[in-house]
């Protein structure tokens, strides 16, 4: 069977599975729609949370980023997993005990104020909508590359599928499709990694393979990689940090706090039956996430090794000098996978010195020795450009794996994007129908009416996000930073103070959220333009790029969170303390006894 047919069958089967689950798990009540009836087993919820959390970015882009960054890429690994420790201990069990459907309803009730809840809704919508654009573009890209249809058709098909199971199934349908999507995406990620690890190191477990020696050599894979990349003028793989140590520190912290504060992840913990289950469920979520996240660094380093091995076979597997005349392969004799990816424009070769061979090295290095060797060899600059995003997608082809593995990776990429999109849509629609329509505009709406409003809000959100995916505003890459920044600087501190500071009042919480939001937006917009409009950035005003102690805008969420805490406590000191009943409510939230199924009562 040819590759294209195999991919159609693989992706088709996975979609049939998702739709089958959607028909089986229709939501009839608001409790099923918002919280899957509160009856999801903690392990099941852990698996659904893992799929909800791991997006197209985790699946497609992360290993490629680590491959280019080396050691510094560890900030994504630590940041996106360490947040679960915070979520499990500081937020999830208490929000489960509180027992309402949404994050803004906790903030509204705890801070006894409709305005606080409305601010939370705005933060939630901004974070979730910016996040979803990237997922929709990811769906389009995956479709167009694997199914040979245009990116537009891909997005329409993706919208249709999500519509079917998210609108009719609500949280219940989403939960069970996410479980299926987790299975598909984790197989798609680990199967090629196992094969590649086996080929390079003889060890089938990628996590151990990364710490092993290359086949037939007495040098470890990482030591060899360090040697080769420094020889080619790149930074040493195992020590190159992301910017300064301070930036890496703050970046990691921002991702951790942001992860814990993202509403579409938090609300998954409303679906388990008890407080006890919420605690263990976070552990299970991290187990399922870790299977991918501990494989990713192996995929990253091995892909880098394989890439260099493809171009200069002798350099990796024996000890040939990369600068010797015959080391690099001839362009005409390059493998088929390179030809396939050249068509997408994500892999480019330009023969700068006209010798018909591919030279891959860091031509911007400041190391005079490398530059001298390159000049002596007659090199005129790096000739191969590889987009980081193809590392995972092209991995099975680079390792010459069978067609069914490539089909599996296609289905896995789509599963990762669709499951996260569905979780985000759920967060958006519940904030609109439950917190805005029922909470503010139409408090007397019937349960049936609210369910209908929820479904309409979801359908509208799908159309808007699809439209944004089709017409990406040219800032898709910068928006994920914004989503994390907002979650870290507004929602996380507000929820945490709501639980851990009995005396925190509404004035403090609102001032904190607004200050955190303002300072984060200011710093991000200074770098990327006001609302990401080109040409409106104002870097000179703040003294140049990364002017705040060399911290990049992506890493600024932790600073925003600190501002939030400081402002909140300062305002809290000079305003009057919360009413007695609120303090009693905090007491009640802190103990597990008396937890009940989540409901929508206001």
């Amino acid at each position, binding site marked *: 069977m040819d590759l294209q047919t195999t991919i159609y069958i693989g992706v088709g089967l996975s979609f049939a599975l998702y739709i089958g689950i959607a028909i089986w798990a229709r939501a009839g009540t608001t409790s099923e729609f918002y919280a899957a009836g509160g009856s999801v087993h903690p392990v099941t919820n852990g698996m659904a949370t893992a799929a909800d959390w791991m997006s197209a970015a985790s699946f497609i882009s992360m290993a490629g980023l680590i491959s280019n960054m080396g050691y510094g890429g*560890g900030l994504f690994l630590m940041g996106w*997993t*360490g947040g679960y420790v915070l979520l*499990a201990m500081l937020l999830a069990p208490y929000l489960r005990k509180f027992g309402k459907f949404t994050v803004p309803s906790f903030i509204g009730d705890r801070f006894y104020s409709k305005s606080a809840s409305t601010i939370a809704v705005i933060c939630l919508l901004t974070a979730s909508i910016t996040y979803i654009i990237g997922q929709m573009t990811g769906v389009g890209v995956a479709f167009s590359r694997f199914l040979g249809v245009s990116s537009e058709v891909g997005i329409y098909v993706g919208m249709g599928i999500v519509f079917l199971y998210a609108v009719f199934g609500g949280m219940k349908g989403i939960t069970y499709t996410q479980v299926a999507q987790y299975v598909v995406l984790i197989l798609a990620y680990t199967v090629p990694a196992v094969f590649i690890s086996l080929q390079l190191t003889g060890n089938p477990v990628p996590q*151990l393979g990364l710490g092993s020696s290359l086949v037939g050599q007495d040098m470890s894979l990482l030591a060899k990689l360090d040697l080769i990349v420094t020889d080619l003028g790149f930074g040493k793989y195992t020590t190159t940090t992301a910017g300064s140590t301070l930036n890496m520190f703050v970046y*990691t912290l921002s991702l951790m706090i942001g992860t814990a504060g993202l509403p579409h992840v938090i609300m998954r913990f409303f679906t388990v039956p008890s407080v006890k289950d919420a*605690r263990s469920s976070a552990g299970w979520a*991290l187990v399922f996430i870790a299977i991918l996240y501990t494989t990713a660094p192996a995929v990253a380093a091995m892909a880098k090794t394989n890439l260099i091995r493809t171009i200069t076979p002798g350099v990796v597997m024996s000890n040939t000098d990369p600068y010797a005349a015959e080391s690099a392969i001839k362009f005409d004799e390059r493998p088929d996978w390179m030809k396939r990816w050249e068509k997408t424009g994500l892999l480019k070769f330009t023969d700068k010195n006209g010798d018909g061979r591919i030279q891959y090295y860091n031509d911007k290095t400041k190391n005079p020795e490398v530059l001298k060797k390159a000049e002596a060899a007659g090199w005129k600059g790096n000739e191969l450009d590889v987009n980081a995003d193809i590392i995972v997608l092209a991995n099975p082809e680079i390792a010459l794996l069978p067609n069914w593995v490539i089909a599996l990776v296609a289905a896995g990429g789509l599963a990762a994007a669709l499951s996260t999109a569905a979780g985000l849509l759920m967060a958006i629609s519940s904030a609109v129908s439950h917190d805005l329509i029922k909470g503010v505009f139409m408090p007397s709406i019937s349960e049936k009416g609210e369910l209908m409003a929820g479904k309409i809000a979801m359908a509208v959100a799908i159309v808007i996000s699809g439209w944004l995916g089709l017409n990406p505003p040219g800032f898709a890459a910068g928006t994920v930073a914004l989503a994390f920044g907002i979650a870290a600087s507004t929602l996380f501190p507000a929820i945490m103070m709501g639980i851990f500071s009995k005396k925190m009042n509404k004035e403090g919480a609102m001032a904190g959220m607004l200050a955190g939001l303002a300072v984060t937006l200011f710093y991000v917009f200074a770098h990327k333009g006001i609302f990401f409009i080109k040409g409106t950035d104002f870097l000179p005003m703040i003294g140049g790029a990364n002017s705040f102690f060399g911290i990049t805008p992506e890493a600024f969420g932790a600073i925003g969170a600190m501002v939030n805490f400081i402002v909140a406590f300062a305002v809290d000191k000079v305003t009057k303390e919360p009413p007695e009943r609120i303090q009693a409510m905090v007491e009640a939230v802190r*103990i597990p006894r008396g937890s009940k199924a989540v409901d929508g009562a206001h």
Partner: protein
Amino acid sequence: MSTDSSSAYWRATLTLLTKILIVWFLVSFGAGILFADLLNNFHLGGYPLGFWFAQQGSIYVFIILIFYYAKKMNDIDRQFDVHED
């Protein structure tokens, strides 16, 4: 639940959280970032140790921490008789 036992329960909870957060900080920000260069002088198989903490070890410790937390919290709940039925 009396005020005394309620504040003792909360103190026990906060003590547990503090202990776990110290380990959480030490494995990621400590071993994975601040002391990574120092730890890279040691090796775990083919892994330099600091690199291992940043890209593997901290994640394993996080998992252990959450399950340890879940277990200890259940014990504390029972000790102060505030567990769910």
